[in-house]
């Protein structure tokens, strides 16, 4: 996916998730699994073995009743860009280029037939967005017929993760090409979770396009590796320099603070460390 770097305005697809709207219903997780043929087993009680490209975490402010407050935080792959484009934690470490950074879309791909299952990428991802196929997928009788033909199921022994429904991007691009349009409309390419969220908490679009809602909501600052200018917006683990493309919004201070690690009594976020 190393597209040419000339003659093209690159897109940078990203997501803004409004945590004040998220009810923790889990529709995004279900939609994601169905859309992407994510395998599951009869017994999914051990969450350390469950594959959840999109996972909703439950956060609390740790206060006693009645001050307790809860927040649900959906976590897809952050499609990290790193400090220079393509230096995602996972892409930079994969020894076989089985995961790659698309300069055209900003999406971190996963090439299942190339991956040989060393799991180095999993060790590198601080968000636990990567999952290993410990088993071959076994679908309940008849379910093969309901699998999405646009997404290849994965075999045992390889890693998988959220792709921002990359197949939808490809389909949208094909359509636009056939209709002779050089650019995609904002609503032409949307992820399954975005569409499934009943609360409308997830917004998806091109962060490089100022007309797209995501740019207006998060106000990414290109001078500071996309750090949001919107005071209510934050990214998970901003200080590590992973440069994620998923932004979160919350009006609650404790939620924003839960997005990163701070020393006790530390007020202001310092400049993130730089990684060459």
């Amino acid at each position, binding site marked *: 996916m190393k597209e040419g770097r000339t003659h093209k305005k690159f897109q940078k697809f990203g997501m803004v998730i409004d945590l004040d709207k998220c009810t923790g219903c889990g529709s995004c997780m279900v939609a994601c699994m169905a859309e992407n043929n994510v395998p599951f087993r009869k017994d999914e009680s*051990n969450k*350390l*073995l*469950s*594959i959840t490209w999109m996972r909703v*975490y*439950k*956060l609390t402010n740790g206060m006693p009743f009645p001050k307790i407050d809860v927040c649900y935080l959906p976590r897809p792959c952050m499609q990290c860009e790193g400090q220079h484009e393509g230096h995602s*934690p996972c892409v*930079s*470490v*994969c*020894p*076989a*280029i*089985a995961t790659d950074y698309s300069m055209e879309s900003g999406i971190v791909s996963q090439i299942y037939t*190339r*991956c*040989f*299952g*060393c*799991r*180095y990428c*999993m*060790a*590198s*991802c*601080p*968000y*636990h967005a*990567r*999952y*290993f*196929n*410990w*088993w*071959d997928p076994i679908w309940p009788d008849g379910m093969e017929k309901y699998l999405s033909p646009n997404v290849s199921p994965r*075999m*045992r*022994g*390889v*890693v998988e993760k959220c792709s921002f429904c990359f197949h939808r991007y490809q389909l949208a691009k094909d359509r636009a090409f056939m209709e002779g349009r050089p650019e995609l409309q904002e609503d032409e390419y949307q992820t399954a979770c975005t569409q499934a969220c009943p609360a409308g908490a997830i917004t998806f679009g091109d962060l490089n396009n100022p007309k797209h809602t995501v740019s207006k909501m998060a106000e990414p600052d290109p001078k500071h590796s996309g750090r949001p200018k919107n005071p209510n917006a934050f990214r*998970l*683990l901003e*200080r*590590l*320099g*992973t440069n994620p493309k998923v932004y979160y919004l919350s009006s609650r201070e404790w939620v924003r603070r*839960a*997005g*990163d*690690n*701070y*020393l*006790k009594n*530390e007020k202001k976020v*310092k400049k993130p*460390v730089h*990684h*060459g």
Partner: protein
Amino acid sequence: MDSALIPKGVKRCPLWQFLLFIGAAGIVLLWGVYAMFLCWFKGLNQTNMNDYYGFALWIWADLAVIAVGGGAFFTGLLRYIFGKDALKNIINYAVLIGFICYSSALLILAIDIGQPLRGWFIFWHANVHSMLTEVAFCLSCYFGVLTIEYIPLILENRQIDKVPFFHHLGHNMHEVMAVFAATGAFLSFFHQGSLGGVAGVLFGRPFAFREGIFIWPWTFFLFTWSAAACGPCFTILVTKITEKVVGKKLVKDYAIELLAKISGWMLLTYTIAKFIDTWYWATVLAPSQGFTLMDFYTNNPLYGIWILITEIAICGLVPAAILMTPKGRKNPVALWIAISLAVAGVCLNRWVMVLQIMAVPVMTFDNWVLYFPSWQEVATTILPVAYGVILIAISYRYLPVFPNEAELNPIEPLPAEEAEEKSVDPPVDLELELKPAEA
């Protein structure tokens, strides 16, 4: 029965005893092989690894055997490049131990990957920016070098040496061994280092991440250094264990002491460097990412701060102090303690740099996760140990691994069988008798 194969001038246990020993180790080996096939055919679900612990016992074992196998390259470097001639008494064994360690490491890697049949992708589709790619290339090349270093020893088997071609081949290989020692040292510097780099470049994991020079994080240099410091200790440790098992002295004291002394100084400098690295990490780097040192060591029974103290003080400073002082390294008990601690220390360091990295939560709402290996993992981790024991036993019995053995353990009178055979041997063989393994 197999006396014709046993090096001249040395005594070996009866064949039945030897076979019994091999049989016992063989059972453990078979257990490991069974587990290995389970993992290959049924997949990594045979392990207790999970999506948090993607790196676990095997990767630790891999890193640990490579670290302790570092004795081969460092002893070779000292012997051939720095001209420490005394080490010729132990270099054969260092090479053999290194060969076992590295072949084990490659085997473990082959079991560890989810799609073993695609293992070659790491070479074919190599990502030159990945530390793991560097590890794979240097590791494989260095294993080749170790094989080349081990072959002349095999060629010195009494019967093989009788074949003129092999005799000359072995001789000529000895002649150019310095070239391979230098190549081995070069390759080792990089793969030992890049194994450290594997952890150090993980900028998403503040427990592991370190800054450094160019593309190499400080862990790169610390790993090479610690392998050079503790590898020779492992060589001494295995030599001492072998001496205990066979009940005789195999290597002259001055060779051991020289190696111990160099190890001691290496260990001291390493420990100082490790301390500085830890200090900077704890006071500057981690806080810049919002972590205090104790964030990495609390909330958890297994990964307490004791682990850091043990690694640096008990397994670093203590053995260094013993090995550096003549009194310390000359005292057998102190030497045993020092080399055991040094080996334990480097293994502990590798443990921390694999498993603790996985255990420490990074997201504020994430949890510490503990892991316990499955029996299949344990069996496949013990497999290389059994394999090593067998290979050492066979090599010791049939090859002149220890050039000083005959001198240190004179046998007289010669067993009847051997004396008889000697009389029919051509004179050329008599000349070669008691020849040191690396002429």
